[in-house]
């Protein structure tokens, strides 16, 4: 069985990049939604917000464990507001940096830049790295989360800029004839994010299905099939935003039964 899982490159890839593709913080957990849905209207804003995210995530992740070690047990509840305050301090220099790159950007992002210090992504990352004593591992984890979020930000930014303004990074694209001002409203942001999330799930499922298909066509590899069925089940159980659990269990049982036959 061990050999099998080593040979399964897709699974190894997913476990190494956990937080980027599997368990993406924006697409499956719904963190940092306001920035994706409303604030990201162009590639530039996406880049600016990604920098902002990185510059709040990493310092908070590195400073908090050191600070919390000094705080007595009775006052552990300051964890949450402290986190926000530290992030707010780091938003200040970020404002200056990003503002220097493009002053117009700060206007279009508006209050959302200040909100980086209270984003749910920050608190979620904090909750994940809280128990981890090794700072290098914390850093790795945070960077993975950041890449996952930044990817979605950039994707949404590019789509909205092309369809909304007909430009990319401020440069006009001559082949875009139609402009939809409607893609700038929050409504379209929600819809776009929903479709991106569905697309991510679809790709994941397609790869899994392809694996099962190839395994089936390669002769008597019953164990492999069972293992794959298990894996699919694990994946499904890991993501809490699936259907109510009863369904998942029953359907996966059915799947298993079918595959064993």
């Amino acid at each position, binding site marked *: 069985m061990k050999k099998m899982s080593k040979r399964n490159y897709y699974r190894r890839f997913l476990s190494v990049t956990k937080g980027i593709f599997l368990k993406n913080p924006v697409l499956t957990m719904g963190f940092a939604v306001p920035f994706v849905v409303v604030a990201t209207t162009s590639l530039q804003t996406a880049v600016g917000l990604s920098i902002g995210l990185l510059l709040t995530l990493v310092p908070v992740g590195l400073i908090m464990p050191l600070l919390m070690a000094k705080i007595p047990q009775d006052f552990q509840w300051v964890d949450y507001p402290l986190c926000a305050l530290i992030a707010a301090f780091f938003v200040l220099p970020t404002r200056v940096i990003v503002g220097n790159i493009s002053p117009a950007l700060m206007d279009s992002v508006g209050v959302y830049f200040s909100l980086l210090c209270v984003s749910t992504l920050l608190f979620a990352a904090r909750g994940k790295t809280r128990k981890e004593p090794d700072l290098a591992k914390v850093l790795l984890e945070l960077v993975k989360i950041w890449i996952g979020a930044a990817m979605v930000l950039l994707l949404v930014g590019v789509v909205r800029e092309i369809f909304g303004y007909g430009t990319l990074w401020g440069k006009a694209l001559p082949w875009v004839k139609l402009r939809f001002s409607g893609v700038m409203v929050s409504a379209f942001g929600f819809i776009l994010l929903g479709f991106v999330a569905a697309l991510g799930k679809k790709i994941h499922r397609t790869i899994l299905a392809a694996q099962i298909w190839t395994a089936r066509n390669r002769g008597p590899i019953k164990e492999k099939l069972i293992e794959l069925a298990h894996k699919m089940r694990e994946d499904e159980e890991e993501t809490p935003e699936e*259907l*109510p*659990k*009863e*369904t998942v269990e*029953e*359907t996966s049982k059915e799947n298993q039964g079918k595959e064993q036959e």
Partner: protein
Amino acid sequence: MKLWNTKGIILEQKKEPALSRDLQQLLTEQGESAKVETLAENEEVTLDRLIRLCNEASIVDERDGEPLGDILMGWKLRAAPKLIVGDAVDDEPYVSNQTNPLMKQSADAAYGLRLLQTALKPQKAYFAVYREMHYLNSRVPTKIEEFVVRKMGGKYPMERRAFSRLGDDVLAVGVGALIHLARAAKEGRVQSSCFVTVAGNCIGTPCNMEVTIGTPVSALLEHCGLITDPTSLSLNSAMVGKAVEDPEQTLIQANTSAVIAIREAKKNLRHMDCIGCSRCVEVCPEGLNPMELYRATSTNRRQTAFELGLERCIGCAACSYICPSRLELSHLIREKQEKWPKGEHCHDR
């Protein structure tokens, strides 16, 4: 609230031509030999005497298949019923095995009801037929001898609901049982036959028949003639009957009310997903939401199904009948109702 209370449906009755045809007979000889003691000319009719008569003649109420003697035994311990109803209410399509004998053998039916009346001394006694039959060729008489024939209205499924609405002090006896009671009292005949409707769009001459209990279904089909091969063959009802797989092996029983052979058109197969037209919600007699129940059961969401009242479904199949997408709503809901254990286990997982 009455305006919105649209529970149940009025089915297309399709009782003709079986209802207006004469009662036909398909009897084997063997049952004729047994005799019971008849009622003497001036004998006083008491409840005990009637119970004995019923038990000796083994008369069975065709409404639910219980011996009539047992039913009367129950009334011996209670106060006299306020009302006795000779039940000839056939609310299902095709079926007319109570109304037809009431019209063709009305003397016997009235005699049977009279016997019960003298024994139990109720305030009132009458016959009841289904009201939504006004478009039929044959008129049901308004009076049979001294008994009024009442027309009971209501939407399918009405029989059970209608009688429970009349109150607790009511004794309802099927017309078939009344006729057999009269025959036992007059001629001393033991009940060896029952009344069965044979109908459906595959049957050549649909009719009501008096059949010896234990005759195979195929004999009835042969007698009435099949035009084409049926796609479905069922006992008792086309809505919630019992499916017959092998007509040679299936035998007529005392509570069999009909044999229905239907060839279904291809357009009646499922051709679409639910379009949310809410017709099923309007017809459900229990006030459930069949479309949501169907969705919950077909995706195995047990907890939601119980929240929607899965255990209250009575399986009347009104939802499946009305569904314009021809989904098998009632079938699936009943299946899951049996498969999943009752309420206690459905805690939040």
